[in-house]
């Protein structure tokens, strides 16, 4: 080839120079497990439904959410949101208000009448679900969506279990509960109320059921022996809350003492206040920090004028008076009696000392193991009797609605596998996207949106819902506070910050690809990825 004077080589582009050969470590795109998803007892893919909510696509968000949990409007009111406790944003400013967005989506679904897609095909298998509480409803929903025929038998006159008979209306309005239960039934779930199952094996045989899921809950209030005069009015909190659903409201008098330190004690005291008690006092044998009740519920109760008497046990009840002994915490934190007594004026005493399970339906079922009053189940939620699974409050667990819903989903997967003669293998979990994997610089400062609260006067006298919801503008804002921990949200940072132009943008929804021909392995992309979706791995040399 002819060259001009003093030119000996053809000019060309630097693209001929494959600088990728310099690399000693390579960036790779990874997906990590967001802490919210990891913490959710119902196994919701929270980050995924927030992703849709962020762009205002609330229906897709709701449909993604309900893949795992059929009751977002209930969850958005009663869940203790362990997701928010785990949220990485709490270490930046405040946790994302996941629970309030969930409620918004649930309420949107009710308002717009969104319904579940019916099952594509029927499997021909029949499953009996005993108990129409959160666990039973969740199992029924998941089993029905897969195509199994499901019949729920509920001993009580209404469905909902503890969601109706345990959680007061001011926390969970009944129209919301009914709407979400009805949507499950519309899938083709058979709901039989007032039908107590006494002998589960016989019921399965008579109804030609291939499997059963037991979720009867824990509805028997624990009693404690308290010497009492003949005119003393003593009732248990479970019965009190249950009777709130009936025609005749319980008569408690003007001064009410609740004995116990759990959420049920708080619910009972707040209910008593709303029924007209001028004084509602919670007596607990330990201190506030040792109370099993959730702190925000204690706080709300105190706001409403509920009084607390710490370090006290009830020794005796007579008409109108209660004898209380003061306690002292020992070195190990256990309350010990002091021998000091005092008297409290009261018209009635409500015992909130925990609940037991009515296990009579399991009488005569071989192979079952029952420890501490609850049924033992294997990792697949199956009891010792093949084909009978159990979940919710009647198995060893933390007794919350969300845990129960999670049990229902988990059991449904294993029941389905069992019916097919296979074993359900859960997919492997990604590595956790902990805060040290994130570069939080890139997220704008944005404090959490606070939900409106009903004013105190109405909280003390009515059963109106205490906590309000978000509207569309602030729900969108709240959803967008999500950091997308561990999963690429296509912010273009890697594409922008590469000094070697070695990141290829694949277009919306397609994420990115590294061009290893030119990537020198500097690691700027991994360092500047806001959400920790890039890992540097050593090259094999």
């Amino acid at each position: 080839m002819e060259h001009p004077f003093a030119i000996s080589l053809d000019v060309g582009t630097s693209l001929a120079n494959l600088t990728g050969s310099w690399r000693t470590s390579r960036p790779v795109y990874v997906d990590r497990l967001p802490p919210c998803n990891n913490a959710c007892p119902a196994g919701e893919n929270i980050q995924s439904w927030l992703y849709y909510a962020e762009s205002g696509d609330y229906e897709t968000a709701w449909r993604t959410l309900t893949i795992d949990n059929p009751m977002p409007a209930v969850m958005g009111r009663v869940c203790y949101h362990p997701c928010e406790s785990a949220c990485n944003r709490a270490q930046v400013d405040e946790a994302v208000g996941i629970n309030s967005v969930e409620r918004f989506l649930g309420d949107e679904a009710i308002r717009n009448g969104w319904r579940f897609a019916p099952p594509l095909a029927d499997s021909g298998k029949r499953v009996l679900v005993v108990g129409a509480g959160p666990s039973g409803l969740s199992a029924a929903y998941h089993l029905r969506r897969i195509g199994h025929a499901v019949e729920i038998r509920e001993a009580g006159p209404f469905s909902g279990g503890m969601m109706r008979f345990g959680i007061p209306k001011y926390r969970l309005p009944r129209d919301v509960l009914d709407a979400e239960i009805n949507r499950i039934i519309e899938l083709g779930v058979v709901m039989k109320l007032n039908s107590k199952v006494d002998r589960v094996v016989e019921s399965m045989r008579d109804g030609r059921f291939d499997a059963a899921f037991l979720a009867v809950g824990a509805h028997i209030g624990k009693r404690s022996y308290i010497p009492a005069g003949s005119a003393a009015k003593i009732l248990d909190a479970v019965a009190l809350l249950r009777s709130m659903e009936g025609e005749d409201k319980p008569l408690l008098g003007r001064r009410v003492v609740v004995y116990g330190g759990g959420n049920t004690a708080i619910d009972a005291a707040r209910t008593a206040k709303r029924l007209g008690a001028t004084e509602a006092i919670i007596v607990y044998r330990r201190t506030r920090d040792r109370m099993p009740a959730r702190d925000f519920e204690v706080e709300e109760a105190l706001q409403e004028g509920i009084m607390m008497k710490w370090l006290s046990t009830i020794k005796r009840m007579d008409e109108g008076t209660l004898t209380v002994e003061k306690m002292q915490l020992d070195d190990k934190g256990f309350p010990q009696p002091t021998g000091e007594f005092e008297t409290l004026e009261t018209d009635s005493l409500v015992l909130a000392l925990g609940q037991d399970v009515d296990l009579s339906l399991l009488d005569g079922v071989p192979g079952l193991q029952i420890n501490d009053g609850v049924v033992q189940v294997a990792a697949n939620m199956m009891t010792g009797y093949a084909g009978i699974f159990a979940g919710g409050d009647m198995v060893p667990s933390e007794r919350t609605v969300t845990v129960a819903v999670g049990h229902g989903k988990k059991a449904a997967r294993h029941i389905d596998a069992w019916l097919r003669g296979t074993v359900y293998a859960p997919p492997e979990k990604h590595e956790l996207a902990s805060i040290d994997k994130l570069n939080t610089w890139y997220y704008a400062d944005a404090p959490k949106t606070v939900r409106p609260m009903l004013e105190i006067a109405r909280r003390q006298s009515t059963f109106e819902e205490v906590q309000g919801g978000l509207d569309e503008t602030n729900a969108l804002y709240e959803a967008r506070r999500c950091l997308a921990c561990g999963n690429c949200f296509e912010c273009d940072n890697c594409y922008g910050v590469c000094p070697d132009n070695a990141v290829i943008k694949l277009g919306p929804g397609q994420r990115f690809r590294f061009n290893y021909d030119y990537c020198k392995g500097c690691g700027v992309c991994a360092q500047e990825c806001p959400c920790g979706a890039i890992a540097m791995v050593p090259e094999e040399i």
Partner: protein
Amino acid sequence: MDDSTSLAATQKLRFYQKGTFTVGNRLASEADRSVQASTDRSNALTCGHRACQGCGEALGARYALDAALRATGGNLIAVNATGCLEVFTTPYPETSWQIPWVHSLFGNAAAVATGVAAAMRVKGRPQVRVVAQGGDGGTTDIGFGCLSGMFERNDDVLYICYDNEGYMNTGVQRSSATPPAARTATTPAMGPEPGNVFGTGKSMPKIAVAHGIPYVATATVADLHDLERKVVKAMGIHGARYLQIHVPCPPGWGSASQDTIRLARLAVECGMFPVFEAEHGVVTGSRKIRRRVPVDDYLKLQRRFAHLFTTDEGKGRISQLQALADRNIAEYRLLDHEGDA
């Protein structure tokens, strides 16, 4: 609810909490995304260049020229001073430039650019704009005379200085932009005053402001939105303009290659590198510090300052550097979120 967020008082974006400060964002409108977020960005400086791993200058040059290309509709000629940028992009016979690009000498980039702009005017192609670019050595030391001439004549050139605080290409020698106490090949960390001597050096942006030219700005590779906005603004003005971009240099500074942007960010957040704008001799605004850090956070990631962390005397020098940063913060009102916009 306020749906916008302040990007350091220079720019308002819609409130996309998820990645408001990022290069792009799937939720942001096209107008709010950076040039670098676009798949049809020019890549004025393309792959295969021989810059070191994590080179801040390679990044800064692509950021600046891609923005200038978009602002001028592709009618752009670049003139380059000798330096890293020239060497690593054009080892004979290769080039990484995807625009018309001229290199002459170390010290005359401003004068050559003036000539190119004059040639375009004479040829009746005034729409073709000219950018001159160089490192801090070619700008603040060797090219200083030509640059000052370009300023005082108000020639129609945007001069961009990629400031990596030393002569990195030739083996990390001190320049008049090297910060005090920094170890370089010519200011070793030994003797009674280890590293670069306090009280030496100069501020080229201040000197540019003193020329009263239409536009002077500083920027860093850590804030792309701010950098692109300044380039676009500069290309909308005729006459002499000066932009100094702070570009960390991993081998020269002794920092990890992945920390390039992090260092550029820390330099601003501690006050060592003030980011500001000036028009016709008057400072008009500054980029506010978002999360203030002590200078230690910035210094300790760089081996050129490692000697400060081993002796009591070094600690004294760190407080001297902190005092410099504090003076910048007061002078450019870097913490003052009220007032100048």
